[in-house]
């Protein structure tokens, strides 16, 4: 099993950390913003209250036009380092007193501002009327820096950062601990799956407990394993049954093959013997009684002998035919070119005194049983030679071509040919299209050819016409 690039555990920790950090930062920002605005409000409130007190203390100074007293009153602000400046204006809006006492011009506004407060970049300024018994005596103006506010903001940020880092550490520890509860059952499940696929043991169960999705997954996995185990058992039973049936059939086939063998064995032994006796005693009879037998009787004896010999030949051919269907094929590479040349050499004796032109095309090497394929060639070439007997200049061509992934071999002669109406009978056992007085033979050759070729997975067919020669084809898989 390949090692994953990342683990579920790591993913879970990352997810939890990201979530908690984001929540923490968001909450921190909201908290700081709220703290900042409420601090500003409280600061304004404090400054207004102070202005009211100062206003109340300076009513006499304003009423009696005594700026020294007013300056004295404002001087008390010196104890508060956050106070930057202050001013009193009389009822006409003229600057009456300032703090610090000798403030440079421009430090405080020359004329009173409208009642209210406003923040500037680094200071808070308020302006309040000085009123006594309903009569407006003047205006007080106070300026405070934002040091306290900034200090508070600063402290807030530090607290926020510290709590974020602390929380991250705690969240990491918690997440690492918690992810085990999720990742471990999954890893255990993966382990079981690997064990199953490696040992092919479907009786293993994950037995992972849990009420979450992993628990459901593991339960489904166990169910699947159970199903596989059941099916495997079924398949095994089916296989065993199949094997048993194959064995039975094989035994039956072997038995019938044995019977067939026994049959052909006894044909070979017991059927040939009486024929030999018939021929033997006919021969002996001919020898012993020829002087007292007339021409006709001697002719009968000749016919009996010929019939016995022919039946012997038929039995021999039938046994060969039966053997061709039973014997095991031993496939090797067969060079058709050299095999054909050999067969032609063998047939030379049969063609003695005849004018025969043999023509060989390019013949390939095929896969097959050499002795069987040799029999095919012997039969086809001997047939071509036999049936071209009456032709003055016999011409026999052997050729091959590739067709549809097969090798098609053809044997063409210019002999007596055959009536195409009987093509279907050509390859039958003991089927002959010519009288035995015309051409000798038992009629088993082409049946052997067909049986051998079909055992090699090929086909046999023929083309021809009366007195126009014949072409026999057989195909072999490449």
């Amino acid at each position: 099993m390949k090692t994953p690039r990342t683990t579920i555990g790591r993913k879970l920790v990352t997810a939890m950390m990201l979530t908690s950090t984001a929540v923490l930062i968001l909450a921190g920002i909201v908290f700081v913003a709220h703290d900042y605005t409420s601090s500003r409000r409280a600061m304004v409130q404090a400054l207004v209250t102070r202005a009211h007190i100062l206003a109340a203390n300076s009513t006499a100074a304003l009423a009696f036009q005594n700026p020294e007293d007013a300056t004295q009153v404002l001087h008390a602000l010196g104890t508060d380092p956050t106070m930057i400046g202050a001013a009193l204006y009389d009822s006409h809006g003229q600057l009456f007193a300032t703090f610090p006492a000798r403030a440079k011009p421009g430090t405080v506004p020359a004329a009173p501002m409208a009642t209210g407060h406003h923040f500037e970049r680094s200071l808070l300024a308020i302006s309040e009327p000085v009123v006594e018994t309903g009569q407006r005596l003047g205006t007080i103006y106070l300026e405070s820096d934002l040091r306290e506010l900034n200090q508070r903001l600063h402290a807030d940020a530090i607290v926020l950062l510290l709590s974020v880092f602390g929380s991250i550490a705690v969240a990491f520890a918690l997440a690492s601990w918690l992810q085990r509860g999720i990742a471990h059952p999954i890893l255990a499940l993966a382990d079981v799956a690997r064990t199953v696929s490696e040992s092919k043991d479907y009786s293993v169960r994950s037995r992972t407990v849990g009420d979450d999705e992993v628990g459901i997954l593991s339960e489904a996995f166990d169910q699947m394993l159970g199903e596989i185990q059941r099916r495997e058992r079924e398949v095994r039973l089916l296989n065993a049954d199949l094997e048993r049936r194959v064995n039975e059939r094989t035994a039956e086939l072997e038995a019938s093959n044995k019977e067939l063998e026994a049959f052909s064995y006894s044909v070979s032994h017991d059927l040939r013997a009486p024929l030999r006796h018939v021929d033997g005693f006919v021969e002996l009879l001919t020898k012993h009684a020829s002087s007292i037998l007339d021409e006709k009787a001697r002719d009968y004896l000749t016919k009996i002998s010929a019939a016995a010999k022919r039946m012997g030949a038929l039995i021999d051919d039938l046994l060969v035919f039966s053997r061709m269907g039973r014997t095991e094929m031993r496939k090797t590479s067969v060079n058709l070119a050299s095999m054909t040349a050999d067969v032609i050499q063998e047939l030379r004796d049969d063609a003695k005194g005849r004018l025969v032109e043999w023509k060989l095309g390019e013949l390939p090497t095929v896969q097959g049983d050499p002795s069987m394929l040799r029999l095919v060639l012997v039969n086809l070439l001997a047939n071509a030679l036999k049936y071209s007997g009456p032709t003055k200049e016999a011409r026999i061509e052997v050729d091959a071509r590739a067709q549809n992934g097969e090798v098609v071999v053809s044997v063409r002669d210019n002999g007596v040919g055959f009536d195409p109406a009987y093509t279907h009978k050509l390859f039958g056992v003991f089927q002959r299209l010519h009288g035995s007085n015309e051409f000798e033979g038992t009629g088993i050759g082409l049946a052997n050819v067909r049986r051998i070729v079909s055992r090699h997975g090929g086909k046999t067919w023929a083309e021809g016409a009366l007195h126009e020669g014949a072409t026999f084809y057989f195909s072999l898989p490449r």
Partner: protein
Amino acid sequence: MLKRILLAEDNENDLELTLTALAEHNLANEVVVARDGAEAWDFLCHKGAFADRNGGNPAVVLLDLKMPKVDGLEVLRRMREDPRFKAVPVVVLTSSREESDIVQSYKLGVNAFVVKPVAFDEFIGAVKNLGLFWAVLNEPPPDRISPASAA
């Protein structure tokens, strides 16, 4: 000089034809006939009907395969397992051209395997050749080639 031939053959007709063929070439005089494998074995071992026979091993045993009681292959097997007959030439003379018979016979150590031809003239020729070769031309192993006598 003519040496003794043991002919194991159960079939009356085959026997007559074989003997006729041998007689035609004056080879029949020294032929001993066994009608089945058991008799052939008795002859070889000087037992039963042949308990009192004289002479040693035949120059050749012509053996039919299909015989009652003890068949030809069994006789051949016993002979090749017995030190007394291990070296005696055996020719299987049978109707069958069955490959399994041929293979089995050679595995058991037969000296020749001859299929009886259906045509009588060929049959006569075959038997004549066999008789001439084994009973005249071939020099059989010295009698009782057993380990005991060799020592």
